[in-house]
């Protein structure tokens, strides 16, 4: 079937402002949007620029705005979108070129929550014990692939500076890990002015997450943790 892709283009070397270009490609209805982009890049206009790698939704490279929603291009099929598809870069980040945005601020937010296990106690010779129930607490948030779909879907992130859902999800991943010992430092970070309280429970993040992570739920769990750990 034929689809028309309306793609936001921007080349910093020649353009001052982003503009749109349309491409018509012949694809199968069951093809991914990424396949359609590849068609354009490989056979029509090699200068179209976007990130991609795994092509099946596990590396997080190709997060972009597809018909107004943040998606992974490799995880949406053409047939679910219809014959006209608008593709734009993620909101809230500096555009480097076409669909490629500067994710450095995103990773800086991620690093700010100390996303690693902290436990200064000398480890046992074998594994640290953790029950399946304790493990279950971090099942959902440990699925995060850092694709930035959630953060860039959050209206609070568009307009102001805050940690954003993805960083909080990764904070949650360690806060709720029974082996971690840095609860208080993490809570202190997340309790800051630009921490969890900025979240207005808008749920765009949850809707956007391609891994189906209950992002808002995780943020709310962190809020409750701060609330109850406080008193």
């Amino acid at each position: 079937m034929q689809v028309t892709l309306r793609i936001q283009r921007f080349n910093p070397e020649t353009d001052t402002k982003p503009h749109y270009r349309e491409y018509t490609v012949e694809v199968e209805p069951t093809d991914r949007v990424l396949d359609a982009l590849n068609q354009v890049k490989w056979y029509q206009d090699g200068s179209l620029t976007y990130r991609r790698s795994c092509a099946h939704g596990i590396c997080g490279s190709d997060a972009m705005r597809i018909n107004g929603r943040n998606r992974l291009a490799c995880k949406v099929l053409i047939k679910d979108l219809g014959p006209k598809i608008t593709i734009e870069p993620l909101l809230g980040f500096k555009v480097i070129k076409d669909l490629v945005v500067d994710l450095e601020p995103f990773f800086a937010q991620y690093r700010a929550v100390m996303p690693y296990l902290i436990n200064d106690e000398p480890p046992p010779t074998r594994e640290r014990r953790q029950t399946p129930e304790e493990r279950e607490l971090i099942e959902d948030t440990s699925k995060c692939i850092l694709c930035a779909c959630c953060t860039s879907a959050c209206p609070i992130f568009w307009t102001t500076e805050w940690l954003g859902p993805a960083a909080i999800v990764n904070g949650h991943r360690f806060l709720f890990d029974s082996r971690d010992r840095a609860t208080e430092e993490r809570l202190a970070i997340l309790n800051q002015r630009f921490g969890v309280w900025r979240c207005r429970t808008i749920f765009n993040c949850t809707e956007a997450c391609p891994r189906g992570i209950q992002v808002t739920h995780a943020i709310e769990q962190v809020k409750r943790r701060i609330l109850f750990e406080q008193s």
Partner: protein
Amino acid sequence: MTTGTVPTQERGPATAGTRGIAAYRGYRPPVGMLSWALHRITGLGVLLFLLLHIVDIFLVGYGPETFNELLFIYRHPVFRIGEIILVAGLYYHAANGVRIILIDFWEKAYRFERQLFYGVIAVFLAGFLPTAFFMIRAMVR
């Protein structure tokens, strides 16, 4: 290029790409975003009215003449319609406020995000329609 932990956010100048309020135009809202936008707009709207209301209440202290002279404003049809909208805003805000509080304190609420929003609409209508009925009746009389 990334390095170790950088605790603050660094953001380059936006050469292109949408940031700020303009971003709203480009994002297609699911219900969560709609409910929040309404909550914020109604909250700010009610606040604006409250500020006005404080001023007029202040005039009560200046005696019946001063105050009663002001009351024609309240009885003006435009203002009365405005008040109906205000009440609508307040009711929505109140109902949605309860929804937000539920999400915050009830562990399982996130599973019913959409249902809760529909509930908000239902509660809102249940409260607003009768109130509006009385207000409109008073107005046409």
